[in-house]
């Protein structure tokens, strides 16, 4: 484990991106950040800019309008970068499968390291997914 990775594991910063879902998963991601579930105890902070982020948390199915923006955000993140798919929409298109503007699932377009299933998943599940990804960084 390099020294950069050591510190990254102590404070991975998140960027949350909703690529077109119903907002259910987004609310659960926000709930995971609140003091009740508190991902901050693992050093994780939600950040507003992809340039500061280590982990990209994507919720919702990838829509045609969002795809170029999602890719651009991914490209703006510094290496090494990790993508976590949260919710059945991001994993399989879920309830939106077959819609006229859905071009997902997410792993067709970006390398996904962890999948958190559920519609929406509970905040504990999201935290578990993020922790599993951190284990990999070791």
């Amino acid at each position: 484990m390099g020294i950069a990775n050591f510190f990254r594991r102590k404070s991975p910063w998140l960027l949350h991106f909703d690529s077109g879902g119903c907002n259910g998963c987004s609310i659960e991601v926000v709930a995971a950040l609140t003091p009740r579930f508190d991902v901050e105890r693992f050093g994780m902070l939600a950040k507003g800019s992809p340039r500061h982020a280590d982990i990209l948390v994507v919720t919702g199915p990838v829509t045609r309008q969002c795809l170029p923006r999602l890719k651009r955000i991914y490209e703006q993140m510094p290496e090494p970068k990790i993508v976590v798919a949260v919710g059945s929409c991001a994993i399989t298109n879920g309830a939106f499968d077959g819609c006229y503007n859905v071009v997902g699932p997410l792993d067709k377009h970006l390398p996904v390291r962890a999948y958190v299933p559920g519609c929406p998943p509970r905040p504990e599940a999201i935290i578990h997914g993020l922790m599993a990804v951190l284990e990999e960084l070791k």
Partner: protein
Amino acid sequence: MKASEVIQLLEGLIEEVKTVGNRRVFATASKERFREVLQRLREKEVRHVSTISGVDRGSHISVVYHFDCRPCLLNLRVDLPKDNPEIRTITDLFPGAEIYERDLMEMLGVKVSEHPDPRRFFLPDDWPEGVYPLRKEVKQP
């Protein structure tokens, strides 16, 4: 207005009237005369069109206007032929309908004439012209 009062007000302009309870009225109007219905509603201080829904029924396109007549709801259906689905805008009477009409135009290809701002609203920027995703004949991927 109660359901019976709404029906009384619109006497002669609406057909196929159906009421559910005393707070819900379903009715149809012809494309030529539906604006008279709207004018009468305006005179009675009905100010709120809750939404407009467009339905592709295969042979024709139905446009359903949902009005809040406090406490009654009026669902006014106007049927349009599929080969030339054109209707006048209602934004001069109900300005809030602007976005609903833009939605009708891009999703179902209904031509709303005299609309103040007929640009695209929801569809992706690179969506092809002339493909209306909520039409029955459009193939879903």
